[in-house]
């Protein structure tokens, strides 16, 4: 009998390996922690919890050897053993992590797992305690104190049913305290508990027999049924006090009531079926052998385990579940506070000017510096609430890669790095779709078939990389492959065919512009391009999402070597540092993260190349973008300000009239009905009430860059 279908079992295994790797990683970490503080009970509990989860999961997945070992280890992870063993316990945990890891990879390759003898002995050494206990026959004494006897007689006189009850605790039940508690609960149901031994104060550590006397209206049969608690009570004795108690007690002969026979039978039945368990386990595991082995992800998971964040260390008891809306409210309020702060700054500035000699000035500026610092911390703290590790997004990709690779008959490994990079939850959610698209494309079109790869002198197994890292105020997420790369010429040719590009443009088109054609909606849906270049379907969606996130996407490709898509997104959507400047007497802002440097240049430094105004700055030749719209605009004092911005890995020079300064802007989203241009991504209010528009750089560049290009081309 199979509990799970083939499909289901395979799915479960994937899930299991994924989570098991995390568990091992956290085992390693907590093991090291335990080595440092062997008597820290909290750490010990962490280890135990991790081992316990691993045990449960591996048992459920049918990996009996692993589960057994984990079980042994878990039993050893008690404060008592820790006190006795000291650092040896941590050693055992670390050895266990290694052993489990090799067992896991054996399971994954469907090999016989190593027996883990070393670990087994290590654990035995830790828990060298006589394990075998003879099952004692239930011998009840019912030796109540004089007062208790008085209470019993009193209850009987009032016509209540009074019973002496003795429980023998199942020797297979290792949780004596829990058993004791359950018995107490049950007795409570049976009536008034007149006496109970052992009582609350006694340690229940190696408790075998519980005796009690209850009074109430329940019949003996009812009580007997209620007290025969499965898996806790192995033997039961019920008597009416005062009848045979004395004889029992006096004879000292082991008395075994008839009723206990079938109880013992149950116990025997249970223990015998415990041994039969492996059958079931095999039944679960068997279908997984039919799994096609087209894809091999071991390296990916092994790599991932190296750098996986310790999820379990972070998962302490003190978690709070809060509606995202509440956090957004706080976030908005912080945003308003920041506007208020700049209002205050403005006012203080005016005050300074008006009363330059006033003593109050210093007090003001001190208080405001203090306030600014706190505000900064507050803002960071609020942001942090929304942050989640990129891992949440990345962890689904081993599966995506595997599925796509399987469906198109390729061998692909997935390498993941930087998954502990934190990112705003809402950004992360929005990135899920585009990233999945890029990864699918990489496997489907980027990676060649194994034969093709071998012919090209590459390893047959392709690699897809996912990486995340910080870069200034941004997060960079890269999805790359070592496949065939994008064929630029074909792309350009296709674009001309579709009328997206004119022949003149095609001749002058730069490397980046050519590659960016991929994101053109008209091209993206063309199957031929997909087949030739290996890219396309829905790439415009990727672009659109990144635009919405005020992020950028750029492509790096080397024919024959592979392609990497680089997605840059802001750390958060709500507040940005921005550079303010004026163009044509209007205030604009660009995200400071995009600004590389600010330069002054005179008209004579501007050259005209290929119908573009460009300026040379050290190594780079930057295309100039005149936000004012007029390339011949005379600059103030013969010189003009150039804000050098980076967009993806390209740089541009924005020619602006006047620089205003940098400021933290709280972005107010602009409704689509309000502003019908994609050139502006949002607006903000300054301290003095001025409204500033935040430019959407990628649109500005593509629009104005193109405009100049076509103007130049027709001129």
């Amino acid at each position, binding site marked *: *009998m*199979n*509990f*799970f279908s083939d499909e289901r079992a395979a799915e*479960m295994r994937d*899930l*299991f390996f994924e989570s098991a790797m995390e568990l091992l990683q956290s085992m390693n970490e907590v093991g090291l922690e335990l080595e440092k503080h062997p008597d820290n009970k909290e750490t010990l509990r962490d280890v*135990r*919890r991790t081992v*316990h*989860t691993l*045990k*449960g*999961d591996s*048992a*459920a*997945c049918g990996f009996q050897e692993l*589960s057994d070992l984990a*079980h042994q280890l*878990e*039993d050893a*992870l*008690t404060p008592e053993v820790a006190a006795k063993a000291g650092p040896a316990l941590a050693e055992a945990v670390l050895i266990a992590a290694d052993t489990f890891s090799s067992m896991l990879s054996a399971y994954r390759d469907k090999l016989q797992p190593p027996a883990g003898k070393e670990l087994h002995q290590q654990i035995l050494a830790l828990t060298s305690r006589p394990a075998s206990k003879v099952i004692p026959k239930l011998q009840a004494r019912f030796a109540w104190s004089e007062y208790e006897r008085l209470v019993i007689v009193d209850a009987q006189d009032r016509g209540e049913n009074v019973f002496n009850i003795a429980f023998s605790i199942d020797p297979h*039940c*290792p*949780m*004596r*305290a*829990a058993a*004791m*508690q*359950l018995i*107490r*609960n049950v007795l409570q149901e049976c009536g008034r508990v007149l006496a109970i031994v052992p009582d609350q104060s006694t340690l229940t550590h190696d408790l075998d027999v519980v005796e009690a006397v209850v009074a109430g209206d329940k019949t003996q049969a009812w009580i007997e*049924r*209620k007290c*025969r*608690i*499965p*898996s*806790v009570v192995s033997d039961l004795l019920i008597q009416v006090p005062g009848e045979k108690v004395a004889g029992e007690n006096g004879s000292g002969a082991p008395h075994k009531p008839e009723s206990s026979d079938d109880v013992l039978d*149950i116990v025997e*039945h*249970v223990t015998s*079926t*415990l041994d039969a*368990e492996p*059958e*079931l386990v095999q*039944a679960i595991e068997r279908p997984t052998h039919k799994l096609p082995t087209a894809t091999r992800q071991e390296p990916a998971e092994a790599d991932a385990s190296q750098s996986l964040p310790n999820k379990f260390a972070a*998962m302490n*008891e003190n*978690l709070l*579940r809060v509606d995202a809306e509440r956090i957004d409210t706080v976030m908005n309020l912080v945003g308003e506070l920041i506007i208020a702060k700049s209002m205050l700054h403005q006012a203080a500035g005016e005050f300074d000017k008006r009363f330059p000699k006033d003593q109050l000035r210093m007090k003001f500026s001190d208080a405001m510096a203090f306030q600014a610092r706190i505000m900064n911390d507050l803002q960071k703290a609020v942001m942090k609430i929304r942050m989640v590790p990129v891992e949440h997004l990345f962890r689904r990709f081993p599966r995506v890669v595997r599925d796509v690779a399987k469906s198109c008959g390729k061998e692909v490994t997935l390498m993941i790095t930087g998954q502990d990079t934190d990112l705003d939850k809402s950004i992360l959610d929005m990135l899920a779709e585009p990233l999945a698209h890029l990864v699918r494309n990489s496997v489907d079109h980027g990676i060649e078939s194994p034969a093709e790869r071998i012919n090209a002198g590459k390893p047959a197994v392709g690699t897809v990389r996912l990486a995340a890292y910080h870069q200034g105020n941004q997060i960079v997420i890269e999805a790359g492959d070592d496949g065939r790369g994008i064929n630029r010429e074909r792309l350009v040719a296709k674009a001309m065919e579709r009328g997206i590009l004119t022949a003149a443009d095609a001749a002058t088109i730069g490397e980046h512009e050519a590659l960016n054609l991929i994101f053109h909606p008209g091209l993206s849906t063309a199957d031929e391009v997909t087949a030739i270049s290996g890219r396309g379907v829905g790439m415009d969606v990727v672009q659109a999402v990144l635009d919405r996130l005020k992020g950028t996407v750029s492509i790096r490709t080397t024919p024959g070597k592979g392609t990497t898509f680089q997605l840059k997104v802001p750390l958060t959507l709500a507040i940005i540092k921005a550079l303010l400047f004026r163009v044509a007497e209007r205030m604009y802002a660009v995200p400071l993260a995009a600004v590389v440097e600010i330069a002054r240049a005179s008209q004579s430094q501007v050259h005209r190349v290929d119908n573009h105004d460009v300026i040379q700055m050290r190594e780079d030749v930057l295309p100039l973008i005149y936000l004012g719209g007029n390339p011949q605009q005379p600059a103030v004092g013969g010189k003009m300000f150039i804000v050098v911005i980076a967009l993806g890995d390209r740089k541009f020079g924005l020619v602006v009239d006047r620089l205003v300064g940098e400021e933290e802007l709280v972005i107010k989203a602009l409704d689509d009905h309000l502003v019908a241009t994609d050139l502006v991504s949002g607006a903000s209010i300054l301290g003095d009430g001025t409204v500033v528009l935040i430019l959407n750089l990628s649109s500005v560049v593509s629009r104005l860059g193109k405009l100049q290009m076509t103007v130049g081309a027709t001129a």
Partner: protein
Amino acid sequence: MDQFPLLLRKDRKPIRYLVVDDSVFARKNVAKMVEAFGGEIVGEAGDGCTAITEYDRATPDMVLMDITMPQMEGIEAAERIVRAHPQARIVMVSSVGYQENIVAALQKGARHFVQKPVKAEILYEVIKYVMGDDAVMSTAVAQES
């Protein structure tokens, strides 16, 4: 695996279960077992909070609840459920290591506990015990797949 006589409600309908565990495996494992006993899974939850809302939604006959879970531990969930529904039958499912937690859960109104890894035979007996008079054993044997 052994066959079990179907364990049904007094009204001969399947016993309705809510399975709570943060591990999907554990959940599926237990779910398969109780289904083999003739029960019906009416809800699943991966943490204590969800368990409470699921209980309110599905009002199951029996809750199988893991002790250690993120968000809200099984004990607290059990306590809250029992406070709102004194008739709730909650069986704690956990391992040897969490004895003090099981004791706490039992004090808070849980009816029984089962050790992990869960053995079908023991679970069966425990369920039968906890259901008490509200369950009947059907002569029809659970269908083998």
